[in-house]
């Protein structure tokens, strides 16, 4: 797997974000004194243990998985809330870890934004909406003139379906859906190219979720945005994503174009995940719930992390961890049971 070379294009595609070998470990040990007295070892939580993916400009890449799979950690790593333990994140050809000067970092940061899960926690309750939305504008020094900031804020509010007068209100005066619109307006304030969306609709009601998802699609088309979309809801992901990565215990187990993934899931976990969703269409298929529970990420199973729950488990799964490798055009799977065609097994891995 190549980690160097020209970042701009890969197979003719315009790559905006390139993630390679990304790892993040958390030390969750007891305090030193307790460890010494009780003789307990250090405990390391491997939240993300080596993942690769690319996001094309103007596309949406989604990470799905159940709680504890590390998808939110990836989001936080990409926007710089955490430092990677290992691996690289390249944005628009620049390795984020190599940016030392504050001005360089700010130049990249303004091109990225984030939308959070909880619309009740993501807006400072003591700030007026105007100040919340204009904070990025002021922080990056995008506009100096007070009147220009006022105009820009009004434009942002209008863009997300609120009225300019709403700027004078406090967050508690809005419903959950409206707050999420404010959150989106703030994300758009620095005129970003790329937005990380961490479960943007999972705290919302269905009818409001539809409003927000529609708004996000519309903004993507109009402004040419790229999204990293984190969600546990497969139906939402199917609606939004061009490409999907399925995560399990800190690793990608499958990565494929959205349609392909849903029509022909290859990894047994993906397959079981799809089979297990309550289905509004009631197609009458017999559902097989995934047996067992998600293992503790501090003490993951040997070999393939999914093997204790996998219906196709073999001896090799218990011993060796499968690597993510291409099995068909644009489809990558980490599973011993999925065969790779010969002509692909040697080719370069690309997201």
């Amino acid at each position, binding site marked *: 797997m190549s980690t160097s070379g020209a970042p701009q294009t890969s197979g003719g595609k315009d790559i905006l974000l390139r993630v390679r070998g990304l790892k993040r470990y958390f030390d969750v040990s007891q305090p030193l004194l307790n460890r010494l007295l009780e003789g307990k070892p250090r405990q390391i939580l491997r939240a993300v243990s080596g993942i690769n993916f690319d996001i094309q400009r103007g596309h949406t890449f989604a990470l799905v998985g159940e709680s504890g799979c590390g998808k939110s950690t990836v989001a936080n790593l990409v926007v710089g809330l955490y430092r990677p333990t290992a691996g690289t994140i390249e944005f628009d050809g620049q390795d984020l870890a190599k940016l030392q000067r504050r001005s360089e970092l700010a130049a990249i940061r303004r091109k990225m934004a984030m939308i959070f899960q909880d619309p009740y926690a993501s807006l400072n309750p003591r700030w007026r909406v105007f100040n919340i939305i204009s904070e990025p504008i002021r922080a990056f020094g995008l506009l100096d003139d007070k009147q220009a900031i006022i105009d820009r804020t009004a434009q942002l509010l209008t863009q997300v379906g609120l009225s300019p007068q709403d700027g004078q209100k406090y967050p508690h005066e809005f419903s959950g859906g409206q707050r999420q619109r404010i959150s989106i307006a703030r994300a758009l304030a620095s005129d970003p190219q790329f937005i990380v969306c961490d479960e943007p609709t999972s705290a919302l009601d*269905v009818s409001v979720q539809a409003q927000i998802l529609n708004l996000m699609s519309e903004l993507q088309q109009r402004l040419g945005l790229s999204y990293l979309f984190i969600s546990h809801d497969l139906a939402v992901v199917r609606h939004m994503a061009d490409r999907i990565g399925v995560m399990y215990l800190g690793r990608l187990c499958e990565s494929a174009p959205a349609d392909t993934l849903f029509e022909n899931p290859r990894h047994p976990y993906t397959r079981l995940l799809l089979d297990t*969703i309550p289905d509004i*269409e009631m197609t009458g298929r017999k559902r097989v719930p995934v047996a067992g529970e998600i293992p503790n990420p501090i003490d993951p199973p040997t070999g393939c992390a999914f093997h204790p729950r996998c219906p196709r488990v073999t001896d090799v799964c218990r011993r060796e961890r499968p690597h993510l490798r291409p099995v068909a055009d644009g489809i990558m799977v980490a599973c011993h049971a999925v065969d790779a065609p010969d002509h692909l097994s040697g080719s370069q891995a690309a997201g």
Partner: protein
Amino acid sequence: MSEPLLNVAHLRIEFNTRRGTLVAVDDISFDVMPGEVFGVVGESGAGKSLTGQAIIGLLEPPGRIAAGEIRLDGRRIDNLPYGQMRRLRGRQIGMIFQDPLTSLNPLYTVGRQLVETIQTHTSMNHEEARRRAVALLEDVGIPAADKRIDHYPHQFSGGMRQRVVIALALCANPRLVIADEPTTALDVSIQAQIILLLKQLCEQYDTAVILITHDMGVIAEISDRVAVMYAGRIVEIGGVREVVKNARHPYARGLMGAIPSLHRRVEKLNQIDGSMPRLTEIPSGCAFHPRCPQAFERCRRERPDLVRVGESQVACWLYGRTS
């Protein structure tokens, strides 16, 4: 058709605040048949959880039942004195809450909690009650139940804890179980296990279930009939297939259309503009009219009642009072 197990008639729940009386649930009526899974679906603030709490007599003040009747097996239960209601809870009606952590006492082993509950409602001695508790834990799919019974709640995972809660709700073999968002706090792969378990156990024990949730998928999966609630009112009741595939009320239809599909990809999701009104500002007439694309003059003025339309009952002026 047989007699309904539970009959709710013209139930109205009010909150007295110093700013006036808020009507949280307004004149709702429905029946639950023995052994049936009755879904109550709606978005947050629709009043679905309050309805469940009113039935089991756990409405927290200042909330109170202001009007209407609730009958279990023909007997009125909404005005029972506290002691009788407490005996009814558990023996006749069980409850499963959203968060399995808060419905179990962290200081006692699950066995002790099960045995205590069983003994409260039956005349079993400790040995028998314990044997029944182990059997129950086996029924809800907890491996090595005879060992796990002596564990504390925190030693179970989220999914396993919810299984214990189900066992606890079923231990007196109640006629009715009220499950309030039983899978919301769980992961997708665990949700399916719990839903199937609930369905299967209720068939096995011949228990009716009122399943309160915001998740249409869960409803579609296991309910027999479903009531759609909006702003404290029922807008549509019908067989689950009928409501999901062929919703008649514009809100119910909008709700179904708003759910992204796993099978098809659409350019734009159906969206209902606006949001659920606050209790302080419920619109006149049909509460849905400000968001309804088909609203007309009458909707603003008069409140529609449930009328029979095909197999379902719908509260909407689009469907005239024809028999």
